[in-house]
């Protein structure tokens, strides 16, 4: 019983983290078509922010991280990506690769390569069905999933979300309706970046924060987005769940190095079989009917 509970709790913890990262990447990669190889490094920025502002209360730090993420996203989108969309995937990929190098090197220049830590706001463990699990892990995963849930609701239930989805779907048409599409696209990218920064910030008490820490997040996040059918808004959440189960499951059952190999092989097979992901209609609600 205990191993199962431990497994489920760990999957939950990993799922929360990956869902937040993947949903943000889903916006940038799935919706805007930008292969954002700097996504992990944005999480690194969030983690370092938490370290740098160590005296500020935790919640306030998170808020600052979110705002900083938005600012970073707007900066990158406006300066770098604006004129590159028409040049295709390679151009945007390489632009983000350059941005990633700049982010990493700047972090190294400011903080140095020595690993840093952030103390969790809630220390200690909680007893769940006989298993002692660190409380902060569960809290951070819950918060992450809550954020994703709220954003999905915003996307599907509010006017703003509707306009955003319209801009992404058919830019010219949406512009014809008076929706400021440039603003919408910048906004989407900014939100995606902010989510990555927030994910890194939430995860920081568990990490050994170095300028390279973001690199290991890239692959699982991209897999999650691809598994969940790029372009769908709910897809990355499903993909994150699959990745979390695979990751934790394989590593619980097998030795680490073998588990890592099997992880990649399993993902390659999954991608090969389902390049468009399952036809997931979960997030399609019936449209609200307004009184005529």
């Amino acid at each position, binding site marked *: 019983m205990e191993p199962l509970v431990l497994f489920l709790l760990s999957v939950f913890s990993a799922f929360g983290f990956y869902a937040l990262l993947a949903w943000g990447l889903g916006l940038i*990669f799935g919706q805007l*078509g930008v*292969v954002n*190889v700097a996504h992990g490094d944005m999480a690194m920025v969030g983690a370092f922010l938490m370290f740098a502002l160590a005296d500020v209360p935790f919640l306030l730090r998170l808020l600052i991280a979110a705002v900083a993420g938005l600012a970073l996203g707007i900066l990158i989108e406006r300066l*770098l990506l604006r*004129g*590159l969309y028409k*040049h295709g*995937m*390679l*151009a945007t*990929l*390489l*632009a983000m*690769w*350059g*941005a*990633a*190098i*700049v982010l990493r*090197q*700047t972090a190294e*220049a400011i903080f140095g390569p020595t690993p840093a830590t952030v103390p969790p706001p809630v220390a200690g463990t909680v007893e769940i069905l006989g298993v002692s699990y660190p409380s902060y892990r569960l809290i951070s995963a819950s918060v992450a999933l809550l954020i994703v849930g709220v954003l999905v609701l915003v996307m599907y239930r509010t006017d703003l979300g509707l306009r955003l989805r319209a801009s992404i779907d058919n830019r010219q048409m949406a512009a014809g309706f008076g929706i400021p599409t440039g603003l919408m696209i910048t906004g989407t990218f900014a939100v995606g970046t902010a989510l990555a920064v927030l994910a890194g910030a939430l995860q920081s008490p568990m990490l050994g924060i170095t300028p390279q820490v973001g*690199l290991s997040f890239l*692959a699982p996040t*991209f*897999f999650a987005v*691809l598994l969940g059918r*790029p372009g769908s808004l709910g897809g990355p959440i499903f993909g994150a769940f699959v990745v979390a189960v695979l990751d934790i499951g394989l590593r619980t059952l097998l030795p680490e*190095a*073998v588990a*890592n*190999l099997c992880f*990649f*092989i399993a*993902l*390659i097979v999954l*991608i*090969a079989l389902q*390049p*468009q992901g399952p036809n997931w209609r979960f997030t399609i609600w019936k449209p609200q009917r307004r009184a005529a």
Partner: protein
Amino acid sequence: MQRAPRLRPRRAIWFGAVAALLALAPFALPPYPLALLTLTLVYGLFAFGLDISWGRAGVVSIGHAAFFGLGAYGWAVAGRAGLPGELGGVVGVLLAVAVAVVVGFAGLGRRASASTMAILTLAVTLLFEQLARTWSDVTNGSNGIVVRSRGLIPDYYVTLLVVLVVVAVVWWFVLRGRAGRRYLAVHLNPDRAAHLGIDVRATRISSFAISAGVAALAGAVAAPVMGLVSPTAGGIIMSTQVLVWLAVGGRGSIIGAFAGAILVTMGQQYLGEAIGSWYLLVLGIVFVIVVRFAPGGLAGLVRSLLRRPAHSAAAQDAHLVAAPPRRRPKAEPAPGASAVEVAGIRKHYGATSVLDGIDLRVPVGESLCIIGPNGAGKTTLLNIVAGDIDATSGRVLVAGVDATKWRIHRRARAGIGKVFQIPSVFTELSPADNLALARSEALEPRPLPPALARFEQDTGRAASALPLADRRSLELAMVLAWGPDIVILDEPAAGLSHEESVALARLLRAVASETGATLIVIEHDMEIVRELADRVVVLADGRFLAEGRLDEIAAREDVKRAYLGAAT
């Protein structure tokens, strides 16, 4: 038409000059820069390999170093086992090609998008690096395998020789040959390429496989030059390095691949010496600027400096001038069989039914017009016949053979040519190049009718510069020159003036009667229908409503109701 030679003397001179210059390098360079040059030549070959797939066929790969690593490890492992490195290198190349084919099949199917290949290749390179690290019995793990060098000068000449030979061979047989033309077609407009009979998936996979092979060969040559083969040689960092080289040098050009590798590698070296640890940050910023303001890389910059027109650059290295088609024996249709036959075609999207049981036989040589109100399912039906869409149920027969499971290119090869609703041509190429490309895949080369012959001399602009009507005419010219037995046209007169429409109809009629081709046309303009059609069928609400001659049909009440609604 006269065949232009595949190789102009000027090119050969260039190649010879470059080869001679490089051969003299050991006399001019001190040892360290020479060693660096050797390494950058190998890296350039690697970038050239990636360019075959990404630059020319448009197949994305962000994990290409896995193939490079396979070649390098092949050489190193063989050396470690006491076997000749060449043997290991060959095994590495074959393995790389095999892996590429498997990955290609997985990632380049019809349902896949560009992002699929991106992520798949990312997974492959990560897998390779992890495998190299874990399988330490064979690969010696993270410490890597030491590879003896032959000596500075022999290494340089061997590397140079291999690079020159590989580039020349690939250029001559692949890029200048039919494969190169197909890569170009598939890259610029995969839909049009498919309808010219090119197997898009096979072309992409072949480009990826050749690209992997060249990368692996570069790896094998690199092993003695690098001195040590470790997991990072095939990992994510090397994969992104080659992307940087290609971005800086410019895709789609041989010089670009090598220039990018040389510039970045040497630049990193000297910049590092000059400004120490800050060089990475500076490099990142420079890189961002390059991508932002010179997306075509160095080659693109040089091209714009030389004012070489974009449309001739778009052809890359493909040999397009009056390229001869490969003559294929055409299967004669079974006697008595219709050109096209559909039986029981149904198509629905979820709960929405578009076609609800269509049966149609089009005899050879007939000009059939399909008319009907909007949303009746006409385009869907034609797409099902051409192979763009799969029917939910029912059969499609072409020349009496069951073609229901055939993909687009196979149906095209059976004689179906398609003119799209929105003209689908190779917009980056000039009209003359468009025609040459179409002719190179022709089933049966045919002369163009005089009304369309003007495009053959049009080499001075890209097809995107043509107004819509001309673009449609170009598309029609391409299809006709390609020599189909059956021509499917989806609203060919849309957007044309009345005079132009009638001229088009007369042209089509003339072509049909001269060549005996079967025409299936969707049209709204009744004048054209009158001019063109032997038979008319009316499609409404997913079913055939009526068929016959235009006058009979126009008089029927149910047809009028379908077009205009119930009230009238």
